């Protein structure tokens, strides 16, 4: 031991100071004395350099077993490249020992934004803290596997990469030449990074004109109500911005489960003086640290919000200046048609998009469209006027506010209470808290969008914050979908086309065509944000982000489950199939491949569609038989891999060089350096790169020089891999070069380089950038400042990307008028699944990110080892169900068994099964997904109007699950004793 002290000077110095520590303690007779490094009166000496060499302990007594355990060979920085979304991401040190990842611990070096807010350290969660265990557990995929039995039989043959890729490439060529390139469909999921994985996938599908699905509305994250109101969904604050709030509404969210690394900002904001209100049907985990829990019936939040709005209007607590400038509430609506008064009404050849308000001086005036600034205009907020139309006819027009005020009479606290179950006194209290608040903030997640009428809930919530002027100010605001990314991905994808590609149809379409369009949009006064959204809309019609939900409804047979919708939804007057046909024929929404053109191949990239899709048995029944080949790339076995034809082993998150998108909540890009390798696993970049090369090789061998894409253009195949790799610049294992390109070319990461990022593991964004979603944050990222969204609208008066160019509460598209949803209203939830007494809801779990940890042994050990349904003591007692007993849950669709968890925190009438149990965790493979019909809400098929047209990740029809009706009964072994 004595000799070891000489290994490095640092050791000797430290050892001398302490007269003990690692080595010396063991020298000091049997090691019975534990000593600390040094007496606490002395501050610790700063560590010299980045690493302090210490000798590994050799065995003297039992202490050294523990000391030896806490040693390692090297430390590498990484993160978990999964969509933890609101809580993304956390920088981890990955400790490697004997060639394997031994454990991980947070880096915890995030800077404090400023002295008024706490620093974010250490971040992390229990899932991240055991990925080192998860990546080596029995679910891990080690080598390429080809199915040899029936699909789903569990019979596999280990194959070489070459065999797998050759076979897949040949099937792709067959599909492209015999059926059409759009019949190859990619399902992308929560492992999508916007780094190397996405770079490979996007280049590949663009060159081969494959269809890739935009799943955001399918998963229920598309925040339709936000998009309807703001013309976009991507805006959120930084989590430390809560420290400037004095009122925080947790509404439609459970951050103690789903924002574990961010949640301390809420508990700390409470200590700083903010009042925290948690609005939720159950006494959720997030309620326990609140100052007020507001109970509400599931799916009835619109009634609660409108109740609050009615009090605000009634008590004169409305911020009139804000709504006059920022919202459509002063805009005029024709009484006869219920449509906005338009320029086309007032003069022949007038625009259909120019709307009007009444100015106190000038009377009926066009709403400024290039700026929100009112100048000398003073719009009348509440009023009725008469207008002479171009036809000579005189019609009455009213402000949206006046229509709203009239409608709010249906939502007095007493009436709202009858609809939503919240006591009237609480509704009044909440309204007055909001009215008094200096800065009221919203904490929400993508919960409301998973309700059939979620859009109405979100529109109503946004209204409450607008009436009180709670936008743009530090610590204030309703928020949408959090997204922040580097903005270089599209540039990387297009950079595969060079000057020599003047005749390449894809290059012309995507690069050349876009420039001309941009000029046109600019001339029309579009903001940068609006131009980015229009570019995104082009990507959708290319098929690179085709509507996922409609794909499953049309090609996956899911629409079958909506056939009883008119029985379930009392407001619906015609079959939804009819509305779908109308929508597709009018070009409001699009389906790829076109109806009748069966998909032939499905690639699943870091996704788990058979776990994810509500009523997935219909997909198995309708879509699976049509598919010639199903290929899944993943690092673990899932409900989808078990039903695939090929499983290709992807590198786990510590086994690759990668970086990933995040959100403004934690505005730091995160990266990972490859720490170890495992069997035959390869990065997604490498897998897709090799596949692309193989398609090229097989096309040459088979003499296929080109193919005709979905637009009828002939695309070359002879230089496929050359294009993909930028003429060899980005080879199969050049993940790091791709990372470097993306970081170097991002407009919003300053001078950051990939080597710097890789070393540190994270870096703060310097700007919002021009990303297809992130630009919606419409704010600046300043050093030393927290992030508050929408400041560009509220303070710089930038128009919103809506029809009215304002925050828009009134929608006059024909489907909205037909459904009576032109203003935010409350509609009773549909009886999805039949007329049963209980509502089966869900929520993201504390215990997994999607399904990635659902079958992890450590996580299961901290639960009950199997899926559970939370239910109230009242419902359980009425049905003689005991805690821990098995129950049968059923509705018109199906039935399944699950363990009951009887909880005092649950509201009567509501069952909750948290997110993402794998199908194979249920007896007979049947779980809650089997009971969820995900009825298609026809209003979501709307389009045509400026901001209602489908856009990237929003304004496409979606799937829902929260309204599912069921009954439950004890099984023979589940009854109370």
């Amino acid at each position, binding site marked *: 031991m004595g000799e070891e002290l000489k290994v490095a000077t640092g050791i000797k110095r430290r050892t001398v100071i302490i007269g003990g520590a690692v080595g010396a303690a063991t020298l000091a007779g049997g090691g019975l004395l534990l000593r600390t490094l040094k007496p606490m009166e002395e501050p610790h000496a700063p560590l010299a350099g980045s690493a302090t060499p210490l000798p590994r302990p050799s065995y003297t007594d039992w202490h050294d077993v523990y000391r030896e355990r806490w040693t390692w060979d090297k430390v590498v920085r990484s993160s978990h490249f999964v969509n933890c979304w609101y809580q993304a991401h956390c920088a981890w040190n990955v400790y490697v020992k004997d060639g394997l990842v031994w454990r991980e611990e947070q880096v915890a070096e995030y800077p404090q934004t400023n002295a008024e807010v706490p620093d974010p350290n250490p971040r992390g969660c229990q899932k991240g803290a055991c990925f080192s265990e998860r990546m080596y557990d029995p679910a891990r995929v080690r080598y390429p596997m080809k199915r040899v039995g029936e699909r789903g039989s569990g019979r596999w043959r280990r194959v070489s990469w070459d065999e797998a890729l050759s076979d897949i490439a040949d099937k792709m060529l067959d599909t492209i030449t015999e059926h059409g390139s759009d019949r190859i469909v990619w399902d992308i999921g929560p492992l999508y990074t916007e780094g190397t994985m996405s770079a490979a996938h996007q280049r590949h599908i663009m060159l081969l004109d494959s269809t890739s699905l935009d799943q955001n509305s399918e998963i229920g994250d598309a925040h339709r109500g936000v998009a309807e109101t703001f013309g976009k969904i991507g805006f959120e604050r930084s989590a430390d911005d809560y420290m400037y709030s004095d009122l925080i509404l947790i509404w439609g969210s459970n951050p103690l489960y789903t924002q574990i690394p961010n949640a301390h900002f809420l508990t700390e904001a409470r200590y700083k003086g903010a009042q925290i209100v948690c609005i939720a049907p159950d006494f959720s985990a997030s309620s326990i640290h609140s100052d007020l829990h507001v109970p509400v019936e599931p799916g009835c939040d619109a009634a609660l919000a409108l109740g609050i709005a009615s009090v605000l209007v009634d008590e004169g607590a409305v911020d009139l200046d804000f709504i006059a400038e920022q919202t459509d509430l002063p805009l005029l609506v024709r009484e006869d048609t219920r449509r906005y008064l338009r320029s086309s009404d007032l003069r022949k050849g007038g625009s259909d998009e120019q709307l009007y308000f009444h100015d106190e001086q000038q009377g009926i005036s066009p709403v400024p469209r290039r700026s929100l600034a009112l100048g000398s205009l003073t719009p009348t907020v509440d009023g009725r006027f008469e207008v002479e139309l171009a036809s000579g006819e005189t019609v009455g027009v009213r402000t949206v506010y006046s229509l709203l005020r009239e409608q709010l009479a249906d939502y007095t606290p007493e009436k709202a209470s009858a609809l939503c179950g919240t*006591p009237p006194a609480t509704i009044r209290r909440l309204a007055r808290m909001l009215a008094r608040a200096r800065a009221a903030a919203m904490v929400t997640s993508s919960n409301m969008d998973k309700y059939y009428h979620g859009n109405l809930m979100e529109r109503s919530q946004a209204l409450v914050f607008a009436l009180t002027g709670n936008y743009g100010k530090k610590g204030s605001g309703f928020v949408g979908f959090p997204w922040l990314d580097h903005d270089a991905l599209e540039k990387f994808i297009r950079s595969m086309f060079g000057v020599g590609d003047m005749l390449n149809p894809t290059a012309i379409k995507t690069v050349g065509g876009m420039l001309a369009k941009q000029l046109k949009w600019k001339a029309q006064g579009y903001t940068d944000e609006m131009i980015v959204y229009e570019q995104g809309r082009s990507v959708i019609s290319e098929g690179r982000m085709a509507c996922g939900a409609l794909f499953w409804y049309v090609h996956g047979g899911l629409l079958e489950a909506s056939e009883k919708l008119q029985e379930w939804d009392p407001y619906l007057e015609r079959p939804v199939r009819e509305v779908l046909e109308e929508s597709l024929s009018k070009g409001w929404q699009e389906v790829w491949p076109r109806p009748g053109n069966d998909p032939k191949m499905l690639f699943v990239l870091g996704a788990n569609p*058979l776990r994810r899709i509500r009523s997935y048995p219909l997909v198995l029944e309708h879509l699976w038989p049509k598919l010639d080949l199903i290929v899944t790339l993943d690092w673990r076995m899932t409900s989808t891999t078990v039903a695939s034809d090929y499983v290709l082993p992807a590198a786990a998150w510590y086994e690759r060089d990668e970086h990933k998108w995040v959100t403004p909540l934690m505005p730091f890009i995160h990266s990972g350096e490859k720490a170890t390798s495992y069997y035959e696993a390869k990065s997604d970049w490498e897998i897709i790169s090799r596949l692309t090369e193989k398609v090229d090789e097989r096309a040459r061998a088979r003499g296929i020089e080109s193919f005709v894409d979905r637009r009828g253009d002939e695309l070359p195949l002879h230089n496929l891999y050359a294009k993909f790799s930028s003429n060899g610049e980005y080879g199969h294992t050049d993940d790091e070069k791709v990372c470097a390109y993306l970081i170097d070319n991002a407009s919003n990461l300053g001078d950051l380089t990939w080597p710097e990022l890789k070393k540190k593991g994270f870096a703060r964004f310097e700007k919002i950038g021009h990303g297809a979603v992130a630009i919606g944050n419409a704010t600046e990222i300043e050093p030393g400042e927290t992030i508050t969204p929408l400041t560009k609208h509220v303070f710089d008066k930038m128009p919103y990307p809506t029809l009215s160019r304002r925050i828009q509460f009134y929608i006059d598209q024909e489907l909205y008028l037909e459904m009576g949803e032109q203003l935010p209203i409350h509609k009773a939830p549909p009886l999805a699944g039949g007329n049963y007494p209980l509502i089966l809801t869900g929520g993201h779990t504390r215990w997994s990110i999607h399904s990635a940890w659902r079958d992890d042994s450590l996580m299961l050990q901290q639960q009950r080892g199997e899926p559970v349904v939370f239910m109230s003591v009242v419902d359980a007692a009425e049905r003689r169900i005991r805690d821990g007993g098995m129950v049968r849950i059923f509705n018109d669709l199906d039935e399944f068994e699950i363990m009951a968890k009887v909880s005092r925190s649950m509201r009567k009438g509501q069952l909750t099964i948290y997110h993402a149990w794998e199908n194979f965790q249920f007896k007979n493979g049947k779980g809650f997904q089997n009971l969820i019909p995900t009825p298609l809400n026809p209003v979501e098929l709307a389009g045509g109007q400026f901001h209602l047209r489908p856009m990237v990740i929003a304004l496409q029809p979606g799937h829902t699950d929260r309204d599912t009706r069921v009954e439950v009964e004890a099984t023979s072994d589940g009854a109370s004793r």
Partner: protein
Amino acid sequence: MERQLAMVLDLNKCLGCQTCTIACKRLWTRDEGMEYMWWNSVNTQPGRGTPRDWEDLGGGFREGIPEPGRIPTRREFGEAWEYNHREVFYGENASGSGGGAGQHLQIQGEKPDWGPNWDEDQGGGDYPNSYYFYLPRICNHCTHPACLEACPRKAIEKNADNGIVTVNEDRCRGYRFCMEACPYKKIYFNQAKKISQKCIFCFPRIEQGVAPACARQCPGRVRFVGYRDDRDAPIYKLVDKWQVAIPLHPEYGTEPNVFYVPPIAPPRYDENGEIDELNPRIPEAYLVSLFGPKVIDALVVLGEEMAKARKGEKSELMDLLIAYKWKEMFGGFDEDPAAIEWVKS
């Protein structure tokens, strides 16, 4: 010089996320014989906890006299469950097309009726006045450790320099008197090694100036670490100066060195749906049963200081609990473990 390391856990910041639990598990209890151990556990209160009904299992002291206790059974702790993953993915009777009629993932062997976090989020009260909070627990590294007194082998040691209580695994013969005696039931038995094992307050980390994994990895920023007598550090201020941090079950008589800032729940509703100003949501009697009568004073102080903060006034206590600078939570044990490079001898 005799000093005592201590920990303060702020229950108003605990998220129940179990990152502490997993951090500890991954670091210390992964070997054979340790699979079922959770040296750090977090339970929903009210609840039966881990091991199940541990508060009814005796141990500790009453007025200085040792109380009889019993050893929790493996069933009460909860077994480490094993699963049939391979059968589900690759077996003859695999799970089918995303969940067909085949084998499903199940715990192998007898179906359990308890685990370390079995009653998570069930809580107490009657809706809408439900209540619960999370209670993380480690070994209390007591000043008067019942386990130490009970061990006939003198295998339990309390380090004179920092007060960490450890089982000397060279001396331990697995008699398990310590498990009977510990009133907190935080000692486990290793069937493979036939010795008792428990939280070691991460002494190898402490030796290098690094906070214990449960504290340093806590994303809720719940845990303060340091010497009891370090007057400049948060522990002393919270325990002695502000007296808002109090031990769990002080009546057990072991003088724990783990302290808790008690929870403040939202108000309850009366039968008219109005806020009930008179009765707190978490019954005071319940909190007193856990933390003793001093919990009331602690809650009063917390309430007063929170009220000051709401008025925009400065509060040293609130600033301490917010922990603007994370590293300052650790009483000087704030070294970065990744900065250590181990050199093979």
